[in-house]
């Protein structure tokens, strides 16, 4: 259990509070910049340089390099801003759901259907 879960007590969920907002500020600011196409292209052209401009920590840089959503969340990433990072690679929310739960996309979608029964 991470410290966020200790603070808020919701397993599998990081409540994005002040501590996370502080921890993730640079990372989220970078992802927020991806609302502009020129910035998405600049990231793709020079990922290292782009990350450096936003002062990512080593752990955040590694998580961006690894396209590791759970690690990005753990290091202060906010799902709404991270979605803009994922969008660069055309990942939809079911791709992301599957990645985070360790299921295949089909298994993840089946689980959603099951929730409606």
């Amino acid at each position, binding site marked *: 259990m991470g410290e966020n879960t200790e603070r*808020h*007590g*919701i*397993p*599998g*969920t*990081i*409540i*994005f*509070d*002040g501590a996370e*907002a502080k921890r993730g*500020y640079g990372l*989220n*600011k970078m*992802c*927020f910049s*991806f*609302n*502009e*196409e020129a910035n*998405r292209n600049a990231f793709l052209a020079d990922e290292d340089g782009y990350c450096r401009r936003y002062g990512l920590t080593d752990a955040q840089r590694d998580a961006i390099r690894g396209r590791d*959503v*759970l690690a990005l*969340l753990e290091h202060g990433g*906010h*799902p*709404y*801003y*991270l*979605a*803009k990072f*994922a*969008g*660069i690679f*055309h990942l*939809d*929310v*079911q791709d*992301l*759901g599957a990645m*985070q*739960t360790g299921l295949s996309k089909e298994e*993840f*979608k089946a*689980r*959603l*259907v099951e*929730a*409606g029964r």
Partner: protein
Amino acid sequence: MARIVGSIMSTHVPAIANALERHDEADPYWKPFFDGYEAVHSWLDEVQPDVAVIFHNDHGMNFFLDKMPTFAVGCAPEYRHGDEGWGIPTVDPYPGHPDLSWHLVEVLVGDEFDITTCQEMLVDHAVTNPMKLLWPGGGVPIVPVTVNTVMFPYPSAKRCFALGEAIGRAISSYDVEPDLRVVIVGSGGLSHQLEGKRAGFINKSFDLRFVESLTDDPRWVTQFSGEDLVKETGSQGVELLMWLAARAALGGSVRRVTWNYHIPISNTAAGTLVLEPAA
């Protein structure tokens, strides 16, 4: 005095924009969802609103973590749909209704709500998708009211209820256009969670209990804390706060006009509800 004709609560899942672009309304995956809007369209034809006040939450479009208001009221002449970064088609700007916006601001601050006013405001799918769903062929001018569900602490359910009530009163005291017909929109929900190991979380029984409560016992959900709501509805299920504010704006007794619920649309339990003031 202006009159509130009713409240429409609607899911705003981004994928709706792609489905509409592909004309997937009759596709077996989408049909149970889109069918729910037929009754909404008939009702809108009947009540003919002139303007929509939309409770919504921002998803990293108009606000960033540098400045995050708890409540914000759009006072802009128009609202532009920004590039959201992940490829849903952008739509033409929606006209605003600045006179009504400023009246809401006057009354809300007078009522001791410490709101942020926005003379420029970008909107995202939380405004554009309900607009497309409700008015496929056009639309009405809008007044967006933004509620923070990005960064904890969120405003409490109790406070969102009070905000909705205050906006209801403010609309009823707007006398610049005495015949103005206002529809309230609550955008978001129902239960869903996009991120973390609990991604895909949906809670049908809580959703149904909540929607039931909106008719006769609308303060029911105000017993839950922000953390409780995340636990019960998922990280993004807290968007039910928009539904609650939209319900509160109607005041006392209401009548349910239509209700549709379908799991899943994308990662979400999708809901569509219309309530109108009881005669």
